[in-house]
């Protein structure tokens, strides 16, 4: 008994560790949803950024529509994305544990993106110069979150 107890404990611990890589459905759905959300940011940022970088001609309607969508996406409540156990210790995730240990800091930078994209949506249809001026802060708001809260790719 005395000899087998540590063995059984070790077996249970390693089984738990193995199971940890197997996500619950809730974890899996949250991960998939938030990565899709990030992908959509990129999708709407692309025409705006390409105009701001003079890679494609400015189009007021396209710019306004993309900026409105971007602002709407940045404004929504995202707290359901951050299910426990889905940080960058998982192969699939680059979300740093700091999102969970420093929720106030995370919410602050998230609000920064909501503010910057709202400001962009207000002016994106008003000409290329207005777009360029408001696009810079949006980029800074992306980095303001990615710097502390996103781990490098594996």
């Amino acid at each position: 008994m005395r000899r087998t107890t540590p063995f059984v404990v070790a077996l249970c611990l390693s089984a738990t560790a193995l199971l940890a890589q197997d996500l619950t459905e809730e974890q899996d759905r949250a991960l998939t949803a938030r990565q899709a959300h990030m992908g959509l940011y990129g999708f709407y940022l692309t025409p705006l950024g390409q105009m701001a970088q003079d890679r494609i001609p400015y189009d007021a309607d396209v710019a306004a529509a993309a900026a409105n969508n971007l602002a709407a996406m940045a404004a929504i409540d995202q707290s359901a994305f951050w299910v426990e156990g889905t940080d960058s210790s998982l192969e699939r995730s680059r979300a740093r544990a700091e999102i969970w240990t420093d929720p106030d800091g995370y919410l602050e930078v998230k609000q920064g993106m909501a503010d910057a994209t709202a400001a962009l949506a207000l002016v994106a249809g008003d000409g290329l110069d207005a777009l360029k001026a408001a696009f810079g802060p949006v980029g800074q708001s992306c980095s303001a979150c990615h710097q502390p809260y996103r781990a490098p790719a594996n």
Partner: protein
Amino acid sequence: MPRWPWIVGVLVVGTGAGWFATKPTPLPASALDGITGDAERGAITFAAAGCASCHNAPDGPLDVLAGGKSFTSDFGTFIAPNISSDPVHGVGGWTDLELASAIMRGVSPDGAHYYPAFPYTSYIKADVQDIADLIAHMRTLPADTTPSQPHDLGFPFNIRASLGVWKALYLRDDWVMDAPTPELERGRMLVEALGHCAECHTPRNALGGLDRSAWMTGAPNPSGDGRIPDISPAGLTWSAQDIAEYLNSGFTPTFDSAGGTMADVIRHTSQLSDADRMAIAAYLKVLP
């Protein structure tokens, strides 16, 4: 028994020769003769070299070089010192030559080796004029009285004299790449010397020396999880314009954005001219 004095003699001479061969070598006293630093040009060098990425206070402004950021590594934890213009806690009391020797040779004013966490291994390739400009600029930045903290390193890495051997092996002032055009020459200066890109983007051997045969092909992240990406053409298929835009805005061609320490780097590269960012891109595009 009669052999012992002979062996001891060899040991003493050998150790002495070893010490002599690996003792700290500052810049020659005449290195700055006839050179005057230009603080305005130095601001560009300051951005290109990214000094503030390591030497500003954690979350502090980029122009206050108070130090205090810590950098974990396989050898222990390095803590960036105060290099503000404060004469007591910073480097305001150092001469230009002392500062240039620190930056370009990794030698302190009192003749000790610096650890190569400080990338003098790259700055050794810089122009002395650029470094004189940089020093002139640093003298215009605010003083800060935060005391520098000691590094936290394990044995034997805590013995600075051992760095003499490391320097003899790995401190080299020759370029890795040829630069047949003025743009490539500028790009090489920005990438290999001032920007010290290889310090993170090139893998190292067991002793921490850069593996020049795998130049810019990516490496484990020295301070944590993930990898520093391959930025040679094999690993980075972006156009030169894509690279230059990334160094300006932090956006990739698909409008993902830079994170981690690279976001810090872009705070500096965004201050460079378009021509300088294109020169960096041109250099990266011709890597093997």
